[in-house]
């Protein structure tokens, strides 16, 4: 090393950690462990969720057998005598989710394909933030919209099959569908954008139109990400509480008419929680049993979506 005049003022070069360096390394290890603890905290949260759900659920299933829980008995755990047939709220959840997906899959994928393959940059720069605004509308406002606008002005007027009550699974499901459109759209668009340009250019060079490139080249190539976006959106629909609670009512019904009042698993939890059940009562324990069921379902769906992405992803380059 040549010693220029200014270098002399600097501390002598040494490979041993000097006082200043040692202090720096100490500071570093302090921050490193603080941040590591923050990361570990996320594991603690999962442990807490599992423990807080499982312990009361075990107590619940000591009083109510699994066979009874999964029987066709009515669902009325807060009444006297209580009834514990969970299928009524499982079917409510299924209705809401199916209706929501019927809305969200075509709309979400349509928006995603438009944004990824068709939209000029200027349109894109407007549509993306507007979609984010839609994603940020609080569910309580969406519930208001479902109950006071969608149900009386659209569903009750134009639904051709069967009667629609003041609270309806149909209106709730439609609005839950609107809620998850941005989820499908943005995740599916990400997946399609990740398809390499060479594939598109090859198809165009063979004389394909834009539609053919989109549906026959980009869509299949991005399929794993698209399916994952749908699975994730579905799990959000299953867990949605406030919209369903406000717009679908609170009477669980095992029904084939989507215009009926219905309760989902998530909206039952909200409903029972509002009622402030005394600790340890069977009504209190039911919240945890249903919560555990809901947690297992959404966890399963999430694991599934991660697996789909890993297993079926086309790896380019």
């Amino acid at each position, binding site marked *: 090393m040549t010693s220029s005049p200014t270098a002399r003022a600097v501390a002598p070069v040494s490979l041993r950690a000097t006082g200043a*360096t040692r202090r*720096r390394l100490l500071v*570093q290890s302090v921050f*490193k462990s603080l*941040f590591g603890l*923050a*990361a*570990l*905290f*996320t*594991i603690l949260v*999962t442990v*807490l*969720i599992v423990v*807080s*759900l499982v312990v009361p659920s075990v107590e619940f299933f000591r009083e109510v057998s699994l066979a009874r829980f999964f029987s066709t008995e009515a669902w009325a755990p807060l009444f006297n005598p209580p009834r514990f047939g969970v299928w009524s709220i499982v079917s409510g959840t299924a209705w809401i989710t199916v209706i929501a997906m019927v809305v969200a899959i075509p709309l*979400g*994928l349509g*928006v995603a394909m*438009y944004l990824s393959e*068709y939209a000029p940059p200027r349109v894109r720069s407007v*549509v993306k*933030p*507007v*979609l*984010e*605004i*839609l994603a*940020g509308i*609080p*569910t*309580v*406002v*969406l519930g*208001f*919209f479902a109950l*006071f606008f969608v149900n009386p002005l659209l569903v009750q007027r134009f639904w051709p099959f069967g009667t629609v009550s003041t609270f309806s699974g149909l209106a709730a499901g439609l609005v839950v569908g609107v809620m998850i*459109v941005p989820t499908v759209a943005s995740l599916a668009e990400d997946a399609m954008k990740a398809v390499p340009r060479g*594939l598109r250019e090859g*198809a165009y060079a063979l004389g394909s*139109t834009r*539609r053919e490139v*989109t*549906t*026959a080249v980009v869509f*299949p190539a991005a399929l794993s990400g698209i399916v994952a976006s749908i699975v994730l959106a579905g799990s959000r629909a299953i*867990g*949605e509480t*406030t919209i369903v609670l406000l717009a679908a009512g609170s009477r669980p019904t095992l029904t084939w008419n989507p215009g009926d009042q219905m309760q989902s698993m998530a909206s039952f*939890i*909200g409903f029972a*929680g509002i009622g402030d059940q005394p*600790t340890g009562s069977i009504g209190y324990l039911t919240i945890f049993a249903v*919560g555990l069921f*809901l*947690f297992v379902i*959404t966890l399963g769906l*999430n694991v599934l979506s*991660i697996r789909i992405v890993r297993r079926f992803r*086309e790896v380019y380059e």
Partner: protein
Amino acid sequence: MTSTTVEGAPARTIDLSSSTSVSRRLADVGFLLFLWLSLALALGTLVVLLTDVFTEGRPRLTWELISNMPSARPARAGIQSAIFGSLWVVGITAAISLPLGIGAAIYLEEFADPERWSNRLIELNVQNLASVPSVVYGILGLAFIARGPLGLGFTVITAALILVLVVLPTVVIASREALRAVPTSLREGSLALGATEWQTVQRQVLPAAIPGIATGSILSTSRALGESAPLLLTGALTFVTFNPGGLDSAYTVLPIQIFRWVSEARLEFRPLAAAASVVLLVVLLGMNATAILVRNRFEKKL
């Protein structure tokens, strides 16, 4: 699993001979119409929703709405305690969740060895936590924070802690993305000049990632502000006509006050619910706009 499977991607071949060019053009136009229709429906719903809430709430959008306390009489009811409740709860939520989430993100992105099983577990775990329905966090809050071990009751701090758990995964994921967007060359340059890893993070990586982290933080905080489901389980629905005086005070928040009014049997409360929704939406849109501005402003710099 082979790494290069390009030939597997375009699964269907396009048969040009069997389709006349007219029917192909028709299909093209039909498809484009479908795309436009889905875009119009998605954005149109948003416009209809905003218009509906605003027109229904307009008669009650007065200063009294903000200055009055909730009341059993619809003519005199307002949202003062809900606004203060939201400020308290969301303020504490942000103060806890942001340092915690950003810290975890820095660890995972800058210090952790991504190949180690423990770090992969944490990563997978954060992803899972993000997909847990928020009402389940309410159950955890009921069992562990409001009652049970912590026993904090149905108070401001209970609500804030629950919302910390709800938004934490979002903060971690958004901050990680911001950190990942910082070019590796910046880190290498700093390390090559003799800076420690922490000095590199503190002086090079964090300043470069701040816009992205800020955007994610604002969006997560706005999510906490609009969240209602988990708080239904911890007594937010009780009738509160006073502003919170501290961490152990009873509380209500804006979304919950709106929930109360929507589920009221008396229809006089409906315009109130709409007006309070407008207030909530204006605040949220403001936060969203700020986040987008921050992002657009600094996006091109790197």
